[in-house]
């Protein structure tokens, strides 16, 4: 027990020796983990976005250009009270402006305004979560069709297809890439820790010469390796959170309204956890090689 406490203590104060090497090691670990973290954050958010797209279906509703706009506005109010996700509306003028803007910034929209060929439209998002999704989708469709003045209700086959595609692909890319990241991070961290521990070769050798058992030698090295992994992981999470705070709102404006989400708790715990394990493991290997 006293020995165990002493070994733990040694593992911690080892970190205080050769501060510069320690500092370089720790920052390498933290930065590598940070880089992997950015990657994870990115993939996670794309995955989230794809999943939410997949679960939504969009109806695009077109009104008869001849139908009075006031009535259409009434209908818009009514529709927004339905059980839908969201609605975006375009008057013919807005649509024209949008078209003009999308083709070229300086197209003279006024020249077309008198003879606007565009109808009023609405983009309705509708969540497909829950049990009776099929019925609800069909019901929604017929309800929209029955509104007076509605000419057509279209849906988004391409977008739905894209989302389905992403899900199909992501299992082929998402997890392999995460795995690759993990492997690389592990290798970098392990290498760095080994480089660091090479500086302690002399100490390890002398400990063995004065009669230290291999567990006495290894345990503090394992403890410092694990600590370095842990501290590096926590530091990288801090950096990641800072980056996230800076980027969180960068996509949060119309028409995206995309908040970049931070990693979920399980990932947050996994990062320092994995690094701690890597630290342990690489120390273990480094020391084991040394003793032979």
């Amino acid at each position: 027990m006293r020995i165990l406490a002493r070994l733990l203590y040694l593992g911690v104060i080892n970190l205080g020796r050769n501060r510069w090497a320690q500092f370089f090691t720790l920052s390498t670990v933290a930065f590598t983990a940070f880089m992997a973290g950015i990657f994870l954050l990115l993939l996670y958010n794309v995955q989230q976005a794809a999943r939410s797209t997949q679960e939504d279906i969009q109806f695009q509703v077109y009104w008869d250009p001849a139908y009075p706009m006031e009535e259409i506005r009434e209908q818009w109010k009514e529709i927004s009270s339905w059980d839908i996700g969201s609605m975006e509306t375009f008057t013919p003028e807005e649509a024209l402006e949008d078209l003009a803007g999308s083709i070229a910034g300086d197209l003279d929209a006024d020249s077309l305004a008198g003879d606007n060929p565009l109808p009023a439209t609405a983009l309705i998002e509708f969540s497909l979560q829950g049990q009776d999704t099929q019925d609800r989708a069909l019901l929604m469709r017929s309800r929209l069709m029955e509104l007076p003045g509605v000419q057509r209700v279209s849906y988004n086959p391409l977008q739905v297809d894209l989302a389905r595609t992403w899900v199909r692909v992501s299992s082929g890319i998402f997890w392999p890439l995460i795995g690759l990241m993990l492997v690389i991070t592990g290798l970098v961290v392990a290498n760095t820790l080994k480089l660091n521990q090479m500086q302690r070769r002399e100490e390890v050798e002398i400990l063995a010469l004065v009669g230290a058992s291999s567990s006495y030698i290894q345990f503090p090295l394992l403890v410092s390796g694990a600590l370095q992994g842990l501290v590096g992981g926590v530091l990288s999470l801090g950096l990641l959170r800072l980056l996230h705070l800076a980027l969180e709102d960068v996509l949060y404006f119309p028409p995206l309204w995309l908040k970049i989400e931070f990693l979920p708790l399980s990932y947050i715990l996994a990062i320092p956890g994995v690094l701690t394990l890597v630290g342990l493991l690489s120390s273990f290997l480094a020391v084991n090689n040394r003793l032979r």
Partner: protein
Amino acid sequence: MIQVKHLSHSFGRYWALKNISFSLDKGDFLFLTGPSGAGKTTLMRVLHGSLAVQRGVASIAGFDLKNLPEKRLYLLRREVAIVFQDFKILPDQSVWDNVALPLQVRGMVSSQVHKRVRAVLRSLRLDSKSRYLCREISGGEQQRVAVARAVVINPKVLLADEPTGNLDRKLSLQLMEVFRQFHVHGTTVVLATHNEELIRSLPGAKILCLKDGSAVECSWGPEGEGA
């Protein structure tokens, strides 16, 4: 306490030890001498388990060196202490920490450690330097730290490789007195040295002269050889 029979050791094609045999009982004192490169350090390292026994047989403090598994080597090193020719102390740790190391490694309580280290440092005139880092002290002081680290564990066998090379005559004789005390109290001592005065100061000791790895007649010695 030490048995060595037909021991040979080679580095690559170079034979550093050739067919060495001798044996020591508890409390014996052996001087190991011979010109530079004769194989003294090599023999010490074999006895301490740092070099494997390649040919012949060797045992020390009850451990058969030929068949000692690596895992149990540390047990041998708790009985057999060594003073290295190149000290092998930790330069970035204090004198005190270096000397306390073998005791801490054994899990000794710190009050005991304190008492032992203090006594040993005093006997080697190192008390005033105990807080210095080892790279900050003089060559002779470092050599005494190496001796202190070896004797602090009260070993059954004490191997000392040229422990007076950096010491002046007075300190050398004082150190010799420390070794003699251990010898008198039953520690088996093997001391490698070039210093003939040291050898003459202990007439009762055995002497083993090496030359190019072989045991030879001691050319100058008035005393007999180790058998």
